[in-house]
Structures are given as C-alpha cells and as structure tokens.
C-alpha cells in the first residue's frame, strides 16, 4: 500500500513540474518599460545663490591748506578748506544666480570712533530678477562718505562697516492702468497728498515716529462724499483702508499695488491725516532716491469705497533713511 501511495505522489510531482515547464513554453509574456518624469508634490524649497563682491573701500579725506599773511602778527595764518572725500574701489556688486527674484539692501554703519562720518549708497535697495540660462542679473552700487575725518587719522583707519542684506523678493502685485479706480470724476477726492503740507500746493512727505507715511485728504472732500463724517472722532472709530497704486512718474508701465490700513487718524487743519505704515505690508516697496512717483489712492471706510485721490511723491534719501 505504501509503495502505491509513494508511486502516486512521485507521479504527481513529476506531472506538476512538467506542467510548469509546459506553461513557461506556451505563455511567453513580453515585458514593457516606459520612462516617465514625474514632478514631486513635495514643497519646493528655494535655494538662494548670490555673489557679493566689493572693492578696496578706501577713502581719502583731503583738506587744502592755504597760508595767508597776517599783517598784524607778521606771521602766516593757516586756512583750511572744507575737506573732500575721494574713493578707491567704493562699489559693491550683487549678482543673482537663484531661480527666484531677490532684494539686496545696502547699509553703512559708522564705527563708534568715527560716528560723525556717514555713508550713503547710490541705491539703498535693488531688486534682481531670477537668473536665466544666459543671463545673471546683477547690480552695482557705490558708497560715498560725508562728514569730517579728524586730522589725527593720517593712516588708513576703519571708519565703518557695510552690511549687504539679501532675501527673496516679495514684490507688490502689478496692475494695469485700465484697472485703476480713477475713472469716475464724481468720486474724486481733491487735495489728496502723501505728506503734511499744502502751503505751496506740494506734498511734504511726513514720516511719523512709528515709521508711518502720512496720507492726507481734505476733510471737506471726504465729507462731501456723502458719508457725513463731521469730526475726527467719528472717523477715528471707523476702519479706514487704502488701495495704493504707484509707479515712476512719466512711465507707462503697470502700477504696483499695495493695501494699507490707517493705524491712526487725526483731524488736522481742515484735513484728515491717516498714518499708514508702508512696512506693514510685508512687501518690498522699491523706490529710487531722487525720483518722483505718481500715486492713485482709493479710500475705503468700513469697506465702502468713498473715492480716490491722486498725488505725487519725490522719494528722497531722508525718506529712504527713515523708512529703512
């Protein structure tokens, strides 16, 4: 009996093997392959890649000494001219190899021993577009010194330090001119200014202690809009916001657009002053020194548009320093 069972099992195994072999021979299966590029769903972490190069940064303060005969003392008096600064290698160049726009800012800090000497860059801030295969966006700025160097500094002394700050650019969105809210004359607010003086019809930019730039509009204009805002207390209790559009004067480019909130409202001489902190936008607002910018500003009270005004602003070094 055991022999029969063993024989049966052996035969079963043999047939099983042969079945496998037969199957392999009769069912050839082709194998296919395909190359697919898949974009990762992971967050892309930008890598910033920047070159910063600087020159010798040596400055010479030259004073001309003139001898003048003094008939009273029968001696020569020494007269010193105002000093003049000349520079050797006073440039800083920043180049962007990143795949993202960057903002580079330049600052000069006086050494405590030479606090009377101030440094100013030709541009306090530059925006560099993302690098492209054939181009490396770069910008060069130069440093000038002002102030008097003591006569004791007859050899090269360290008078200050330069800091170049780099970060990914967060620029305001741009808006086409046709999208601006300045197409309705009935909604026009007269005498809107970025600044605090109307004496000669021009705006004098005012920076408050909290680094707010003041937007002024005549109280009459706002009252005339039908909101019946009669005193500052009424307006102060309300939520006043602005859509600010700006571009370089005379340019036909799109406008930059930022949203501002009035952190403080005061009723001045027949006008409201709204204190708005431009830095609170978190955006890099890039203005070039000694350039004039045109602004269109729409005003909202509790979310309701009450009109718009237009003004210009000359961006000065003083403004740049205060809002740095």
């Amino acid at each position, binding site marked *: 009996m055991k022999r029969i069972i063993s024989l049966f099992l052996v035969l079963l195994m043999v047939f099983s093997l042969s079945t496998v072999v037969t199957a392999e021979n009769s069912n050839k299966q082709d194998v296919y392959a395909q190359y697919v590029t898949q974009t990762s769903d992971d967050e892309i972490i930008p890598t910033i890649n920047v*070159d910063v190069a600087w020159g010798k940064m040596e400055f010479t303060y030259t004073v001309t000494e003139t001898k003048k005969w003094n008939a009273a003392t029968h001696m020569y008096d020494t007269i010193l001219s105002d000093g003049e600064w000349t520079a050797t*290698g006073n440039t800083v160049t920043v180049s962007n190899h990143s795949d993202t726009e960057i903002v580079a800012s330049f600052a000069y800090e006086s050494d405590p021993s030479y606090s009377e000497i101030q440094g100013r860059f030709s541009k306090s801030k530059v925006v560099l577009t993302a690098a492209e295969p054939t181009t490396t966006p770069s910008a060069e700025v130069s440093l000038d010194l002002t102030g008097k160097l003591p006569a004791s500094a007859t050899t090269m002394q360290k008078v200050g330090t330069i800091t170049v700050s780099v970060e990914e650019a967060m620029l305001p969105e741009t808006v086409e001119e046709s999208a601006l809210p300045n197409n309705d004359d009935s909604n026009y607010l007269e005498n809107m200014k970025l600044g605090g003086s109307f004496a000669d019809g021009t705006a004098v930019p005012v920076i408050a202690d909290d680094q707010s730039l003041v937007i002024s509009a005549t109280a009459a204009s706002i009252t005339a809009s039908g909101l019946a805002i009669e005193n500052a207390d009424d307006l102060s209790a309300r939520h006043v916001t602005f859509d600010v559009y700006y571009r370089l004067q005379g340019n036909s480019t799109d406008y930059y657009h930022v949203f501002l909130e009035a952190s403080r409202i005061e009723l001045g001489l027949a006008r409201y002053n709204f204190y708005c902190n431009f830095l609170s936008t978190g955006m890099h607002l890039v203005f070039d020194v000694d350039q004039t910018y045109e602004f269109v500003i729409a005003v909202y009270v509790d979310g309701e548009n009450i009109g718009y005004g237009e003004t210009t602003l000359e961006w000065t070094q003083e403004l740049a320093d205060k809002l740095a």
Partner: protein
Amino acid sequence: MLRYSKLIMASLLFITTVAVSVAIWSLYFREPDVVLTPDYAPKETEPNAEEIPGDSDVKLEVEDGGGAIGIEYVPKVTIDLSKREAQLSFSNPGKSTQDVVLQIVVQNIVLVQSGRIEPGNRVQRLSLLDGIEKMLSEGGYDGKFVILSYDPASGEKSMVNTEAHITVDVQK
C-alpha cells in the same frame, strides 16, 4: 539655647532659599554670554564643514584689495533642541575669495556661531551656543544668517558683512 537654635534654623532657611533662587535663575532666566564677533578669523576650521562635491575653484573676479563671496543657502533652518543643533544648508563655494564665519541670529541673539568655513565647503549642521536651548521654545521664528568674511591670508575681517533672511523652525 532654644533661641539660639531658632536663629541657626532661620539662617539655614535663608541660605537655602537664596541658593535655590540662584539655581533657578541660573537654570531658567540667566541670559547666555554675549557673543562677540571675531575681528580675526578663528584658526580652527568648522568641524561640521564638508567639501562641496564637484565644486569649481575658479575664483570670482575681484578688484585689487577687494573681496568676494558666493553664498548658497536654503532660507529655512531647523533647530533640534534635543540634539542641541541647527540643521541647515549653507555653502561657501570655491569661487569665494574669503573664508566665512556663519552666525544664526534671532531677535538679535546669536544662537549659533560656526568656526571658519573655507571656500569649497558647506555645513549642514552646527551646534547651538551654550545655554541657547533654554531660551528657545518650539515654534517658528524670523531670523537671519550673518555671514562674516575674513581674508584667508591675513585672517582680517572684511568691512563687508552679508546678511540673509531665514526662517527658523525650533523643534524639541
């Protein structure tokens, strides 16, 4: 005699209270020592620095007497409090003409200061300065890399510092 014992007990209690107060202040409230920026490059290179694979050593063009650095970094740093280290990506590529020392600064407090990082090297982890882990709690912070440049020959600090905005994520 009883009065004398009470006096000793009161004194011991006072001394114990002062000792405990000093210990608590030292552990939880004492600010770390102020970190000074070195005027000359540290002689020791950063122990965590490693060579950048496949990096070129063709130097940037520099005016006579000037300097140049090429920096590459990810603007996001993670601080692992349990390991007392910062995890980051920062390179001083071979094209730089300067050695650099890297600081990680948050709210004007220097959390990390590297040793000297020579051109062609990168760091991916740096140790926290002593006591910093007691000042930090979990969460996100705005911070900056402060990159101090030093002449490799003289070791003198350059008059140009570079700063870069980063975000710092602190984890336990």
